[in-house]
Each structure stands twice: as C-alpha cells, then as structure tokens.
C-alpha cells in the first residue's frame, strides 16, 4: 500500500467535480448562518458530526467490500433531500470517472456498469480507495475531510474570507475529524457482518432544507 496514494485521492485538486459544490455553505451564507471564520467553524463542525459521520461510515464500509448496492440504498435512506441525493449521485459519477482513469480496477468498472448515472459519492469513494490500494480508514478520512474542506473553500469565494482563517478552521477541526473517522471505521466493520442498518443515520435538517431551497435559486455560484 502506498501512503502517497492517499494524498492523491484526498487532494482538493483531484478532478472529481467537487470544486463546483459548496456542501451547503452557499445556502448557509445566504441565510446569514455563516458570516465569518467562527461561524464557518460551527457550520463545518455540525456538518462533520451529522452528514459527515454518515458519509465517512459509508465510505469505510465500501472500502471494506460491503455490497455497493446495499450501501447506495442505505445512503438514499439517509438523505431525505432529493436535491442532495442528486448532488451525491452526480459527484459519485464524476468521482467514478476520475477513479477509473486514475486506478483502473474491475470493481470500479462493475460499479460503473451497475450505476451508469452514478452511485452515492461516499460509496464510490470507498471503492476508489480499494482500487488505490487504500483501506477503510483512508476512505473515511477522505470523506470526512472533504466534507469540511469543501465548504471552507467555498466560503473563501462566497465571503472573500481570508484564506488563512479558513485553513485555520480546518486545522482546529482536525482532532474531531480523527474521532469521526475512528467511529466510522468501527461501525463500518460492524456493518460488514451485521448489515448496513447499523450505519449511523444522523441528519442536519437545515442542510436538507437549505439544499432544497438552493436548488431553486436562479442565480448561484455553486451547484449545491
């Protein structure tokens, strides 16, 4: 296993479409919930411990070879907002393309055949990690980290926030990312033997309703 492969997969410039999405930050900025670095930190913390915990567990379970179809259904069940489901599948499809070109692997080809319009992004991420020779912890780290780094990057663009302040937010969240990842890997191991029902089902209602409102805006900078 190559450590550097994790850096390739986790790189914010990995060409899998994430740059066009704000992770709900654009809706939260418009609603006045993110106005500066401290409120960005609170937003990211909330996202990490709700949707972030779910996606990290899904990614870890996929990396442990749990059935992708079952995981995709579990992801659907944990994503009430149709707009967020659509965004997750779109990002999953884009990641599938990038991963297949980067780490060609029969499991990724099989996933692409099964979900030609995209599976949920964390499911694809877990299989991409497998294809890259990485493990469940790596997959969960990628998922949990991009769940907070995406909004932080977006808020730099949306509010002209000082990029050093945004990066410091991510650094302060790092110990919490570690804990979320550890929990995600533990529950993912259980899901492999007990089934996906044991995966966490936390949700953030403001992210869900914000995503539905955002999807109707005629003018916006980000796709979600």
């Amino acid at each position: 296993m190559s450590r550097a492969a994790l850096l390739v997969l986790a790189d914010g410039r990995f060409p899998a479409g994430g740059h066009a999405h704000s992770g709900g930050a654009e809706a939260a900025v418009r609603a006045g919930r993110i106005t500066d670095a401290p409120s960005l930190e609170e937003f990211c913390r909330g996202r990490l411990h709700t949707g972030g915990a779910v996606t990290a567990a899904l990614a870890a379970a996929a990396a442990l070879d749990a059935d992708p179809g079952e995981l995709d259904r579990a992801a659907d069940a944990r994503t009430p907002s149709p707009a967020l489901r659509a965004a997750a599948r779109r990002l999953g499809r884009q990641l599938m393309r990038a991963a297949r070109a980067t780490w060609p692997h029969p499991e990724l080809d099989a996933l692409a055949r099964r979900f030609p319009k995209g599976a949920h992004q964390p499911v694809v991420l877990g299989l991409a990690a497998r294809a890259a020779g990485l493990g469940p912890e790596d997959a969960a780290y990628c998922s949990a980290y991009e769940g907070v780094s995406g909004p932080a990057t977006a808020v730099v663009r949306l509010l002209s926030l000082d990029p050093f302040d945004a990066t410091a937010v991510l650094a302060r969240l790092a110990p919490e990312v570690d804990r979320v990842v550890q929990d995600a890997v533990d529950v993912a191991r259980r899901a492999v033997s007990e089934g996906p029902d044991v995966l966490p089902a936390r949700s953030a209602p403001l992210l869900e309703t914000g995503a539905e409102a955002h999807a109707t805006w005629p003018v916006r900078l980000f796709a979600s």
Partner: protein
Amino acid sequence: MHLDHHHDGPAAVSADAHRPDGTRRALRIGLGGPVGSGKTATVAALCRALREELSLAVVTNDIYTREDAEFLLREAVLPPERISAVETGACPHTAIRDDISANLEAVEDLEDEVGPLDLVLVESGGDNLTATFSKGLVDAQIFVIDVAGGDDIPRKGGPGVSTADLLVVNKTDLAPYVGSDLARMAADAKAQRGELPVVLQSLRSEDGVRDVADWVRARLAAWTA
C-alpha cells in the same frame, strides 16, 4: 488520450474517440474568451448556419447563472433538449481545464439522449486571457476576443490568443467607434500565432459567421475522415 483503446463499462473515462458501443463520438469544439466578446452570439450563429447539415448540440458553462443557455433557448437556435448547462462553482476555467468531469458528462449525456451527434460546441463562461480547454474535453478550441476589449489584446498574447486552434476577432463593425486598429490586431495576432488561423468577423453582417462555420466544417471533415 487513448484513441484506439476501449474501456470496459458504460462510460468512457477520457478523451476516447469512440463511444462505449464502438461508434465514433461527436467532434467537440470549445469556445472560450473574455466576458462579452461574443462567444454565445458566435455559438448561436454557428447553430443557425450548421443545424440543417449537421446533428449538433451545445454545452454552456456559465459563471453563476444559466443565462447563456437561456439566451440560446430564447433564440431557439436548437431544440431545448440539445442544450445543456454546466454549473462551474465560480470557476469556469476549472470546469473546462482542470476538472472536466461535469462537462464530459454533459457531452456524453447529450450523445446518449439526442444522438447520434456530429458536433458538440462547448462554450466556456467568460473568463480571462489564460483560459484554455483541456485536450481531454475538446478536440479543438476557438478563442473569441472583440475589438472593443482593446486592440492591444492580440499583442498581449496569453495561452488563449497564442495557442487556440482558431482566433476570432469579433465585432469588427465597432472598430471605427472604439478606435481599434484592425490591421494592427491582425498583424499582432499573426506575430503571436504563426501559422494558426485568425478570423475577423462581424455578426451584424449577412452570413457573418461564414468563415468560422467553414473552419468548423473543415475540422469535422478531418475528424470523420
């Protein structure tokens, strides 16, 4: 690029010249250039000029709206199912160069849903002089500037002006009113571009897009040869 390599599975993963079913995919031509230079107007004129002879579709990349797609819809240059808008997260150059996945999907979905297509025009959001298309997304690119943006733009060069397969200097009808020297622009462009072609056009005139349309036809003939 893997021009003769077939991937397993339903979606091509790069700039493969063939679709998963083995047929040759549509030629993809990108149009980039600064805000307001006339990219969308050129796309609309190309659609009108070519739609009777070719099966074509358009992908737009707006910066923060769907205005370019809506302009094309309003002008009814193509049926709505042949026009697709990609959202770019405030960075149009990223979506056409650094992370092309959303644009590739839009192109492939158009081929799946309204194909077979001969030609897909991919229009960038208005950007700066360094914006160029990835070779993984398009087979050729047109860079559109205009005389009102300043007649020193060809001299300044940059990747778009210097390396695009075709440079279009648009709105030549405005040159007398904005004090732009067309001969100087053409000479500067020639100096930057060597043998690469330059078209000076005014879409106000009858058949104003003819030279660009002829260039597209020649690219298509080479693509299908």
